[in-house]
């Protein structure tokens, strides 16, 4: 080899070595940095695109919003069933005897983080007027807010404020800051769920200066008073760092609803008396692709994962109750978290081929057809194939996460009855020749397609010709939503995540006036149901209200307006070095402040594989 060739080879080798060293340096630097901080590395299966609380409409955005901002209320970290607790408010609201006036005091000495939006860049004290401003933003069309519906028609003068042009200098009679620390809300009629709505990311408190200063970019420049502040945010990850100015409130196991019998093995006791947030830095990776997320977790790059259903087979040693394989149990804790919502397939009652019909005879035939379809639906098989058999099937529209769920209710609505279905069809004169074409809509996705095919096979068992069950596919969920909100889809499968643990949040899905484009995408309209809903909507929790909810549930089941439902069981894994109890439900992102990543949990061996049922 001549000298020139040696030089060329040298250049190549140098380049390769530099590349390798650069990557090693980066990783070593990263480890070194991590040694200086306590870090918790969280993973999410989706990403928020906006950090503006007004747009915190899904779990991912809400997780960040409640850490970057303060809400008046939150849910207790450990209490199950879920219970409200004061957050920025110094106590639960004082409610007038008629249930119309809520008076809330906020804690003193709470400051927004330092930010260029403020004069001199110093964060100022959070005031009651900031809450008033933040709630008004939900009614300002320029905000493109997504939480308006929570308070629409509820607060005196707020809807009119919007109609009058959303002028922030104009007062709203029912939404006042009595002084710097006192908020007063006056309702049009009693709204027992109001306090729950004040624990949503939507109600988080933002300073007007920051909204004005950043304009539309406020969505990526959060300026709040929450336990964390933002260091980095993009479509792949977010980094939150401790807000050193966060108020000092000692952690109390008792106040958070600690249950020693089921929670003592998570190493939470030593947290007693310490000041949250416990972890300096939270790194959140947004990884939508299941395999990539799982590989990153197994490689030790993440501390927490919601296990993809495709991995359940590898992860679980048993299903009832879910337990981990011994190898995984030695490294990770397992949480079996029943989702706070459900999946259901609604008939479009506005479609005369399957729903309401002006001719009473045809109306009765349509109802018989819907009931036959419901009876032919095989819930155990749906659960087995798509949810690994660990979802919870239940009849109707009140899911297990709601306090009003009835465990011992009649399950015939979710029990397959092929003979009953065939009898109904025959009795009402339906046969293969005159059955209508069923159009089943779904967004274009492999799993959705498989669900459609399974549905078609269920129906073929009662003689429904396969060529009469057709798919309507949509490129995006937005397109699908547009179609069913415009009443164009005959059968639409959707999921509903509850906003608060009160069945009012699910029965409203079938309240007539909420028909499309509202949340009643079945366009169900039953006089008795509507009467019960109206009567119960102003009632505080009570056995009578629970009975009314259950009555509404029965009415929907009897009308066969929906094929419902299933609540999925989420399998959560987290590193045993962490002292925490993660949650994807009502506590949601509030649990970040209580994660202690600087401490090892108790020995793995004795309780390996037992689940944390929440």
């Amino acid at each position, binding site marked *: 080899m001549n000298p020139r060739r040696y030089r060329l080879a040298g250049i190549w080798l140098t380049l390769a070595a530099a590349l390798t060293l650069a*990557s090693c340096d980066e990783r070593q630097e990263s480890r070194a940095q991590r040694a200086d901080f306590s870090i918790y590395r969280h993973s999410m299966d989706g990403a928020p695109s906006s950090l503006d609380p007004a747009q915190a409409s899904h779990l991912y955005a809400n997780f960040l919003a409640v850490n970057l901002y303060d809400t008046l209320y939150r849910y207790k970290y450990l209490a199950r069933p879920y219970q409200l607790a004061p957050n920025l408010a110094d106590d639960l609201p004082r409610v007038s005897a008629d249930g119309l006036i809520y008076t809330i005091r906020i804690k003193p000495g709470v400051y927004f983080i330092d930010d260029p939006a403020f004069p001199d860049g110093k964060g100022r004290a959070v005031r009651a007027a900031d809450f008033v401003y933040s709630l008004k933003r939900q009614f300002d069309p320029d905000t493109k807010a*997504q939480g*308006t519906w929570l308070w629409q028609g509820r607060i005196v003068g707020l809807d009119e404020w919007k109609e009058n042009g959303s002028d922030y200098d104009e007062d709203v009679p029912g939404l006042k800051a009595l002084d710097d620390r006192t908020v007063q809300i006056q309702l049009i009629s009693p709204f027992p769920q109001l306090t729950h709505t004040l624990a949503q990311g939507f109600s988080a408190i933002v300073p007007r200066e920051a909204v004005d200063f950043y304009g*539309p*970019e406020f969505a990526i420049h959060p300026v709040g008073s929450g336990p964390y502040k933002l260091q980095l945010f993009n479509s792949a990850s977010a980094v939150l760092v401790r807000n050193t100015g966060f108020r000092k409130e000692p952690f109390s196991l008792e106040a958070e609803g600690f249950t020693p019998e089921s929670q003592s093995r998570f190493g939470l006791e030593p947290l007693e008396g310490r000041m949250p947030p416990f972890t300096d830095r939270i790194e959140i990776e947004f990884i939508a692709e299941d395999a990539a997320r799982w590989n990153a977790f197994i490689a030790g790059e993440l501390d927490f994962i919601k296990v993809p259903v495709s991995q359940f087979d590898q992860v679980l040693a048993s299903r009832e109750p879910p337990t981990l394989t011994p190898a995984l149990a030695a490294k990770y804790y397992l949480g079996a978290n029943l989702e706070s919502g459900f999946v259901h397939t609604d008939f479009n009652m506005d479609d005369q081929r399957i729903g309401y019909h002006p001719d009473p005879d045809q109306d009765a035939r349509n109802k018989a057809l819907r009931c036959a379809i419901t009876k032919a639906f095989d819930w155990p098989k749906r659960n087995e194939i798509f949810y690994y058999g660990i979802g919870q099937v239940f009849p109707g529209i009140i899911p297990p996460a709601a306090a009003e769920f009835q465990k011992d209710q009649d399950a015939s609505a979710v029990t397959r009855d092929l003979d009953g279905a065939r009898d109904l069809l025959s009795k009402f004169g339906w046969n293969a020749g005159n059955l209508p074409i069923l159009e089943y809509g779904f967004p274009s996705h492999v799993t959705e397609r498989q669900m459609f095919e399974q549905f078609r096979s269920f129906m073929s068992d009662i003689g429904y010709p396969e060529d009469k069950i057709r798919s309507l596919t949509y490129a*995006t969920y937005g397109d699908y939503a547009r179609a069913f*909100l415009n009443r164009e889809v005959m059968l639409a499968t959707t999921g509903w995540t509850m906003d608060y643990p009160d069945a009012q949040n699910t029965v409203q899905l079938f309240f007539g006036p909420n028909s499309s484009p*509202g949340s009643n995408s079945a366009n169900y309209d039953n006089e008795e149901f509507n009467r019960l809903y109206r009567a119960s909507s102003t009632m505080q929790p009570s056995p009578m209200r629970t009975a009314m909810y259950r009555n509404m549930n029965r009415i929907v089941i009897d009308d066969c307006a929906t094929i419902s439902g299933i609540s999925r069981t989420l399998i959560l894994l987290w590193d045993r070095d962490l002292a925490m109890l993660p949650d994807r439900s009502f506590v949601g992102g509030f649990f970040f402040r209580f994660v202690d990543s600087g401490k090892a949990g108790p020995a793995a061996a004795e309780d390996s594989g037992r689940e944390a049922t929440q």
Partner: protein
Amino acid sequence: MAYLLRKSLHGLLLILGVTLISFVLMVWFGPDQTYSLIGKNATAEQIEDVRHALGYDQPFITRYADYLIELFTLNLGASNSSGEPVNRILARTIPVSLALMIPGFVLGNLLGIALGLLAAHRRGQWSDRVISGLSVGGMSISFLIIIIVFQVLLSTPYGLNLFP
């Protein structure tokens, strides 16, 4: 001069034609952002508010004119969700794409030319046959397979695990 003017006019018409077709496709077949931006339980009025904010309620010709003006002034607007100006997003992200693309492009071309010269220099010999064989093999394998194989080899614990 007349030739230059004629060609410029043709070019302008061509650009207008292309933008018109792409805009028509976007308007009629593109995604409707409205239903991704509304919250749960939206009212017809709220849907109308969002449509108004997105400019969907404007006549087609107005929307097309706005589109042309924004295109020619390089005013690409702001992201619907984050509010960040698109120009700034591009300025931030294009260098990342280039940083990934340029080394591969340069390396690939240098290697290709070097190996091609070597193969030509030793035409018919075993080194020519090996290089030609590898080249044909490489071109025949889908890029997707190559990407996955190199990811596994270079960036996972199953391989060299060189990159994060």
